[in-house]
Structures are given as structure tokens and as C-alpha cells.
């Protein structure tokens, strides 16, 4: 018997009776041996904390004071959150961010995919270059965008000033209450447009050429072909892209926290940033757990409705 691989070495070193036992394992037990460690880790890292969060949300726990008694407060945390006007401001900032990033990314992403699908020479190379931003660390990228957004010396301000004739020192993207919400939209769009583009491209490439040939035989104009073939066939893909971007941007934290830190004032305080402040700066553990549960239920509910709609579109 060859003894060149570690597995074979272990196998030959295993006592006969044990080896026979292993060989004799049923598929069922092998399945369990293969799956058990994964299930265990998933339970420990994903499920258990989730249950703990739900439990904490009904208490007045503060983890920075471990000696204080933890009392059961029922639904009081939920009541306080839902009647707090600051939370609604936060939700508004999140909605602004969510809607505009999705609109811009879908428009630009679809256009790019459409153009790339014209199969010009070197399109693979340029696609890879366009994809770079979305693979990078959002925190590091956010930190660097603060440099690009510097008044006067920042590249972004310089370019805008160059094209509009404004003074590059006259505006601050991250210091101005009106501009900051757009600063995060621009940075996120720069980063994640390629994501929508890639998914749209897959959609466009999945359309068989024969459909267009048939349309051509029927003398359908290019414009009509675009609206009756291209758009409906890409729609399920586009909706999937929106689902992913929606979920990701609803919980957006790293990019924005590095870019604006939630400021100026509370203009870019997205829900995750607010949650972080409640949980890890004010240490209101019970309160922030309830907050987390509310967010989770919101995303979960919206996503479920959306997935139903997506399936309807797919069936058509």
C-alpha cells in the first residue's frame, strides 16, 4: 500500500478494529460527522446570539455594569424606541441613503452592463477594472474618501470645481448638513455600482440570441426589442441585485462610519451607526437589543414581501 499522503498514513496507523468500524460507517453517520461541526458553529455564532439578543431586549441589562441586577421589563424597550422621534430621523436618513444608492446604482449599473454586452474588444479587462472598488475594505475606502472630499486639497472638490467653476474651498462634502447625505451616496455608488452591473450582465448574457433574430424577422424596431425583450428578461436579475443592495445598505456601517461618523449633527446617522452608539457607547444593552430586533424584523419582513414579488416576476 502506498503511504505518501497524510490521510493514508493516518489510515494505516489506525488500529484494525477501529478502521473496520470506520469503514463500516453508514452513509447516514458519515453525513452527520460531516455536517455536525458546521451546524455547531452556526448555532454558536449565528443562532445563539440571536436568541440572546431577543432575551436581552426584554430586560434593562447594561453590560458595563455586571454587578447590577438584570430586571425583566417586558415590552418597555420596544415602546420607548417606537415613540422616540430621534429614531424616526435616523430611519429617514437611512431611507434617503437606501433609495438614492439603489436608484443610481441600478441606472448606472444597467447602462454599463448594456454597453459591455456590446462585446467590444477588451471588454473583459475593463470589466475587471470596474469591479475593483466593490472588493475593497469599506472602512479603508471610507477613510480615504474623507481625503478626496477635503475642501480645497481634495481630488473630488478639485474636479467638481474644475467643471463648475466654483471655489474648491467653498464647500465641504462631509462638513455640510445638506451635502453630507450625498457624500455617502456618492461613495457607496462608486463602490457598489459594479455589483449591479455584474448581475445585469449575467442577465443580458442569459438572453438567447435567437429571440432577437425572431424579433428581427418580425421587423420589430431596436427600441421595441429593448423594451419587450431585453428589459423583461433582465428584470428578475435586476430585482435580485436590488434585494442584495437593499439588505446590505440597510445595515450599512463601516463605509459611512469612517466617512462621516454619522455627522454633521445626525444627518448621516444611519440605523447601524445609531445602534452602535446605543450599544457600545451608551451601553444601553437591553434597549439596543430591542432596537436590533426591530431592525431585523423590518428587513426580514420587507425582504420576504420582496422575494414573493421577485418569484412572481420570475414565473412570468
Amino acid at each position, binding site marked *: 500500500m502506498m503511504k505518501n499522503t497524510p490521510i493514508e498514513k493516518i489510515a494505516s496507523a489506525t488500529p484494525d478494529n477501529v478502521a473496520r468500524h470506520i469503514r463500516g460507517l453508514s452513509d447516514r453517520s458519515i453525513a452527520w460527522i460531516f455536517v455536525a461541526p458546521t451546524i455547531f458553529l452556526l448555532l454558536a455564532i449565528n443562532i445563539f*446570539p440571536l436568541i440572546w439578543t431577543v432575551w436581552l431586549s426584554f430586560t434593562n441589562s447594561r453590560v458595563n455594569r455586571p454587578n447590577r441586577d438584570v430586571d425583566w421589563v417586558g415590552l418597555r424597550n420596544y415602546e420607548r424606541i417606537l415613540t422616540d422621534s430621534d429614531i424616526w430621523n435616523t430611519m429617514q436618513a437611512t431611507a434617503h441613503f437606501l433609495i438614492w444608492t439603489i436608484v443610481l446604482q441600478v441606472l448606472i449599473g444597467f447602462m454599463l452592463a448594456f454597453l459591455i454586452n456590446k*462585446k467590444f474588444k477588451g471588454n473583459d479587462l*475593463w470589466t475587471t477594472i470596474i469591479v475593483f472598488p466593490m472588493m475593497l475594505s469599506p472602512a479603508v475606502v471610507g477613510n480615504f474618501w474623507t481625503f478626496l472630499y477635503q475642501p480645497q486639497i481634495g481630488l473630488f472638490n478639485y474636479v467638481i470645481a474644475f467643471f463648475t467653476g466654483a471655489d474648491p474651498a467653498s464647500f465641504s462634502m462631509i462638513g455640510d448638513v445638506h451635502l453630507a447625505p450625498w457624500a455617502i451616496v456618492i461613495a457607496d455608488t462608486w463602490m457598489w455600482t459594479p455589483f449591479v452591473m455584474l448581475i445585469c450582465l449575467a442577465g443580458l448574457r442569459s438572453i438567447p440570441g435567437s429571440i432577437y433574430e425572431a424579433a428581427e424577422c418580425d421587423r420589430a424596431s431596436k427600441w421595441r426589442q429593448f423594451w419587450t425583450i431585453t428589459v423583461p428578461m433582465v428584470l428578475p436579475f435586476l430585482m435580485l441585485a436590488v434585494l442584495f443592495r437593499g439588505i446590505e445598505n440597510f*445595515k450599512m456601517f463601516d463605509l459611512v462610519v469612517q466617512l462621516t461618523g454619522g455627522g454633521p449633527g445626525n444627518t448621516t446617522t444611519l440605523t447601524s451607526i445609531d445602534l452602535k452608539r446605543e450599544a457600545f457607547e451608551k451601553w444601553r444593552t437591553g434597549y439596543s437589543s430591542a432596537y436590533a430586533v426591530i431592525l431585523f424584523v423590518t428587513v426580514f419582513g420587507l425582504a420576504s414581501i420582496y422575494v414573493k414579488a421577485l418569484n412572481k416576476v420570475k414565473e412570468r
Partner: protein
Amino acid sequence: MSFSVTEPNKGTKWFAGVLVVGYALVTIAPLLWIIATGFKSPADSIAYPPKVVFEPSMEGYVNLFTERTRATEDMLEAAGEPETWYEEIARDQGTVISGPSRYGERFLNSVVIGFGSTALCMILGTAAAYAFSRFRVPLKDDLLFFILSTRMMPPIAVAIPIFLMFRNLGLNDTHLGMILLYTGVNLSLSVWLLKGFIDEIPIEYEEAALIDGYTRFQAFYKVVLPQAATGIASTAIFCLIFAWNEYAFAVLLTSGTAQTAPPFIPTIIGVGGKDWPAVAAGATIFLVPVMVFTILLRKHLLRGITFGAVRK
């Protein structure tokens, strides 16, 4: 070449090409700017108008990797001639190097935690994916749903109980804790992706191997693994990139020993204000490996980012 109505004509291709290349150049500009800033002197980095042509300097990289103290003329003279090129750069700024900075450590932490969690994730993930693909396992159909729902939770929300759990287990701010955490976070995705790849391997290969007298383990090890190698490699790169880029858990659960580079890079400051060339140098060293991996991964990119929902 045969005529085809679906093949765009030359003019269209040119037009599309020019627009896409234009977008690509605009989108890559900030990245090139980061890389360029790393090689600027601090004065050049904040010059107005922004300098595109500049004299390259290693000051940013020297400042990134060293701790320096300001020295008076006398002290500089007493210190004698600089022995190395980097000491010379520090002296030119009127400082002496007092020791290495913590960037090296943080970067190493990123490497250890990134590769550690990826390795663990692949070992557990491949086994589980094989079982999910070939055997009847309960909960199999709920898996995608499960993956999606764990991804809906903002990391900050689960960070509270994980923080408590880690504190009780003594895992806060340890490499092991972060490796386990990132493995747990990545595992559902990697099982799902790997299952997709293993599903594509014809089951007849293993049946043939089993008939030839291989055990299940041997069939898995000698037939399935080599066949799934590409899929495993691309899934591994995805896990690595995720762990590499992760910020929220890292900033909340680590502070010293096990802190990775993303929470550290934004905290780099120079004497009297932000040392942008040093920040840019740190970012460059950190981001360039990911760009290389992106190029390696380009064929499977779509599958990874959509959790296997879209296959090309």
C-alpha cells in the same frame, strides 16, 4: 465571419467601448490617487492644486512602519550619520526613529485571522457541503433561507451577545476568537457555494469509485475533492476577502492583541495633523492583495457575490 443580427456593428462597439473605458478611468482614479498619495511627501499630498506629477518619496511608507520622535539639531548631530535609507528619510524630517509602528503587527493579525478562518471554513464547509449535496440531511431546503436571514442581521446587532459570550469564554481580543467568529459568519455562505460546485460533479464518478472498492472517505478525498478544486479555491478567496475587509466586528471586539488592519488604518496620525501619505501607504499595502485576488477570481465573481443565486 457570418452575418448575425445579434452581433453589434462596428460603430456601436466603438461607442460602447469609449463610454465603458471612460467610466472605468473615472472609477479607477480614486484608487490610483490612493496609490500615488502613498509615494508623495506630506507637503505634496496636501498641495493645491492637487499634484499629479510629483517627486516620489518613501516618507509615507517610512512613517507608516516606524514610530518617530522629534529631535533637536543637537540630538540629530549627536546621533551621528544615519545607517539606513529609512533612517535618513526620518532625519530629513527632523525626527529619529524610536521603534517600529504597530502597523506591521496589525497587518500580520489580518493575515493570521484571514487565513486561519478561511482554512477552518474550507475544512468544515467542504465536508458539510458534500453531505448536503450527496446525502439526505434534515434542514437541507432551509439552508438558503437561513443564509439570507443571517445576513439580514446588522453585525452590530449580534455583536452585543457575541461580545458577552466572548467575554465569558475569555475570547475577547484574541486571534482564536476572531478566527471562530469569521468562520461562523462565512460558513453558511461557503457551504452554500460549495454545495453548488459539488452538485455539478456527476455522482457517477463516485459510484464508480465505490464499486472499485473505495470507501466513502476515499471517494470523497480522491474523486470529489480534485474535481471541486476550482470551486473550493474561489470560495476560499471569497472567505478570505470577507475576513480581510471586515470592520464592524473587528472594531468592537478587538482593541490590542488581535486588532486587524481595517480598524487601525484610519487611526494613523502624524505630527500635527493627519499623515495622509502614511494612511495612503497603509491602505495601498492592504488593498493591493485584494485587487490581485479579484483578478484571479474574475470568472466566479458573480456566483460568490450573489451567494450562488446567479451562476454564469
